[in-house]
């Protein structure tokens, strides 16, 4: 860990102004916002992140879950994961999000971790987290040893020859299935980014993980108005029953009319370099009966483009089963 300055933000404009001094908002940023700290402090202790300035945003009034007049739900960036998971609004209308949050980390971590922080959660790739080893995400141009190394938990979607690191968040997968939007306050004003466009594929620039630029502060995440009658579920498959990242997970939002699927969103976790929406699975399901044959066909379609690595070929079959089982559970709900 290196020496750094620590400043408490007094307001959003001041926080944005301080962060705008940073050369980047991506890996290696010299100015970092700190909220729950559950990712950032870890990475600072490991010398993976070495900011010279921390801006503590915990005092900003971004900790409310609010129903907007048009029925949307706005979640402040500082709402803690545990508060969000147990919010009555979320449990009633966005069960998939509550389930996803509660399947992640531990109770202690969820009490600290925030919505904005979880959105920006960094990969658990062991090469990224060890500063004695090469890693293109941490130090561009040094190579990706995971490709020929320990990649059992890494991605099979969205990989490049430079990076195969998985986005580890459970929350993000639910947000993708719910088609959330992210509100960002930057030096040039406020803007909205659909969740599907928020995270970037690694390509040649794996150190760039999202669309944020220096000074950009995530202020909230907004969920569309609840769909009456939509069934939702989050299924997470992992090595152990608790305190473990997904090997494969699936978030489902589905509506049935007359026994046929009239609306469906399928998002996959644990398998993508970014939270992975499967348009292929959705396409395969639309208008079809909710039965095992169609679910399996959707799973086959979803995994068609998967590119397994040397040790994670099992994720292809596991993700298929995860999709089928999640669809089964979701559609059998009363």
């Amino acid at each position, binding site marked *: 860990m290196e020496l750094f300055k620590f400043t408490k933000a007094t307001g959003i404009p001041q926080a944005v102004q301080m962060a705008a001094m940073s050369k980047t908002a991506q890996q290696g940023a010299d100015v970092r916002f700190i909220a729950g700290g559950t990712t950032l402090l870890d990475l600072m202790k490991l010398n993976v992140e070495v900011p010279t300035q921390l801006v503590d945003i915990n005092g900003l009034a971004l900790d409310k879950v609010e129903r907007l007049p048009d029925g949307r739900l706005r979640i402040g960036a500082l709402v803690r994961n545990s508060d969000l998971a147990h919010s009555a609004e979320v449990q009633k209308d966005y069960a998939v999000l509550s389930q996803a949050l509660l399947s992640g980390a531990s109770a202690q971590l969820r009490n600290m971790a925030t919505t904005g922080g979880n959105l920006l959660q960094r990969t658990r790739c062991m090469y990224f987290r*060890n500063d*004695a080893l090469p890693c293109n995400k941490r130090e561009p141009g040094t190579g990706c040893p995971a490709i020929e190394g320990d990649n059992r938990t890494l991605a099979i979607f969205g990989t490049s020859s430079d990076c195969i690191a998985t986005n580890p968040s459970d929350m993000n997968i639910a947000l993708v299935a719910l088609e959330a939007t992210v509100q960002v306050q930057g030096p040039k004003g406020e803007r909205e980014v659909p969740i599907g466009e928020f995270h970037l594929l690694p390509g040649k620039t794996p150190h760039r993980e999202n669309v944020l630029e220096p000074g950009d502060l995530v202020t909230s995440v907004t969920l569309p108005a609840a769909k009456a009658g939509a069934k939702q579920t989050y299924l997470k498959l992992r090595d152990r029953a*608790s305190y473990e990242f997904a090997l494969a997970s699936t978030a489902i939002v589905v509506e049935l009319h007359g026994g046929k699927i009239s609306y469906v969103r399928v998002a996959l976790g644990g398998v993508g370099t970014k939270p992975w929406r499967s348009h292929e699975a959705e396409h395969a399901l639309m208008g079809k009966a909710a039965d095992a044959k169609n679910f399996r066909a959707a799973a086959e379609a979803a995994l068609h483009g998967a590119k397994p690595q040397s040790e994670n070929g099992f994720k292809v079959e596991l993700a298929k089963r995860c999709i089928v089982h999640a669809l089964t559970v979701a559609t059998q709900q009363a």
Partner: protein
Amino acid sequence: MSTFSTTALPLNTPPKTMGKLPRVDGPLKVTGAAMYSSDYNLPGMLYAVPVCATVPSGKITALDASVAEKMPGVKAVYSHGNIGNLYRAAPPSGFIGILDEQRPPLEDEVVRYYGQYVAVVVAQTFEQATAAADKVKVTYSKTDHNVSDKLKTDEKPKVDFHRGDPDAAFASAAVKIDETYATPTETHNPIELHASVASWDGQGFTVYETTQAVMNHRNVMSQMLGVPEENIRVISRFLGSGFGGKLWPWPHTFLAASASRNLGRPVKLVVARSTMFESVGHRPRTQQRFRLGANADGKLVALIHDSLNHTSILDDYSEGCSEATPYSYSTPNLRATSAIVRRNVGTPTSMRGPGAVPGLFAMESAMDELAIRLKMDPIKLRLMNEPEKDEGLNLPFSSRHFVECLNTGAEKFGWAKRTPGVGSMKKDGLTIGWGVAGCSWIAERTEAQAAVDLMQTGMVRVSTATQDIGTGTYTALSQMASTKLGIPHDRIEVVLGDTRLPAGPISGGSWATASLVPAVMEAIEKAKGTLFAVAGSAKGTQFDGAKPDALAFTDGRVHLKDKSPDTGVPFEEILNKANIRVASGQGSSKGTFGDPNKKFSTHSFGAQFAEVTWQPETARLRVSRVVTVIDGGHIINPKPAQNQIEGAVVMGVGMAIFEETHYDPKFGLPLNNNLADYMVTTNADSPAIDVTFLDYPDKVLNELGARGVGEIGLAGIAAAITNAVYHATGVRVRELPVRIEDLLGPKMDVA
């Protein structure tokens, strides 16, 4: 069957506080008052942080500490050449003088494993030392390394056991099993990190150390630092467990001590969790070819067990996988061999149930495979091959109730309802699998000394230089004294973990309790003798002139043997009247190891029953239920004993389905060097556990018939689980841990 009962203890002395006494050190621990080694902060203390090699094999070509040395608070940077003299220890004698990594730290500039200490920074604060350690620039010329988990050797293996003609018998056996089983590198992960707080006083050291053996630690420090033993005091009051990882000294202790001597100030060195995956030992990877030959009705005719384990470049660590092989089952023809294979890894060490635990995974898996081949119930196969004596030593067992363990366990588990077909049992929409395995562990005593003081205050002090690894040694000694003297435990003070006390045993091998029984009993008798001498010389009392053998001690009172205890006098009164502060007795007992005149084979036994649940649609496997029946001699206190077995079962779940230290082949480091990536069992993964003790005292071992139960609970559990996994899924996993990808083979049931 003899289930545990506190009212039917097989003792000559009526029990007083035997039974379910809560831990006497419990309040200290839950209030945070218990002082663990790294809790000690001494005046003027400095902090040491090591610099660890970032190559697995090579030579240091340059070490530049110039930046680090100028950083705030830095007092010194030591590397090869300026740490001061460190000697090697001579070969051990008994349980004294042992260490697994023989090379003193910084002895040369050769790196033989990733994480090897190459320097140590000492600074005013931990943060300053950490920051400066990051700035020590080390350049290496790398040499080829090998951390491969595929083990093979061209060397002739050592024959551990041999009887009959196993090759011929196997060749002609009607039914054969010939499979290879592997267990991965496992890292001890006690919650308490290893730590040394060393203080040099100009002539010697006081060291607060996380050690399971203060006496050995003192001896090795004496040898390696070149300081007489009497000038070294090693203290280990409480341990946040060790699992064998803290049995013998590791290099950090010599760095801390050397730095303290060089700087003339106390030095604290706490080993980081990531470093605990490198330089404080691990259970080595094992690969075991196991052959069983049987006749058509299941009688074993041949058993051949060939095991390999990895070790470090410099040290010959043998896991000893064949520990339980020669005596577990009856067979006229048997051979067990072992060999080591060198890798660029830190030196392995004992981990809970060394040898037997990986060995029994292989043997009890092979027995299950044989039962399936024979279409025979796996319990019946074991019962059929129950030996009448230890066929390895050709001696009778002192006390073996393995058959009762199996039968009792079967009854408790509900084994009779088991249907043998793969995937044939369902519960709550899940497939369930049931597996069984036998287990055993060495029951021995090591040399031990103890002192008992009857105090003028009415208190009794029991002291010995052993230590409580967390298993309840304080409590067990309190109970021994309480029972023998008839004095409630709140008047008994137990003092442990200090080399100034009478030399006590290591906290290892599950032997501490058994070893201490005779020593404490003798010390009590001698203390009573001292007291009787005092009483007999007390003028004008009822005891005046009484010969010691005319006196008796009952429930804390001295009385004439021919009179009732009610007529007696409390011992503290006798001491008070005589103005004698303390009546002391010293006791000692010999070890049983290597005794050429052994008349019995002494072991603990047990049976493990495991239930797994299996959801084929998602390949989700969980261990749901474990029944374990332990024949571990007389159980002094069933509370901590049950706790030991439950903890071992939880660890066994980890061994079966989670734990594995993964060395990166290219970079040579243990990659998953933290508690997120190295998976241990969480509460959510822990099964319902039902523990039964048979409680047959083993009087061959000591007067109370107590053995020790620290390790046996882990033996056999991994095989019971993989046997259950086979029963549920049809997948035989011979290489631990069982992983989700092993279980994706069975096709999902899509209607």
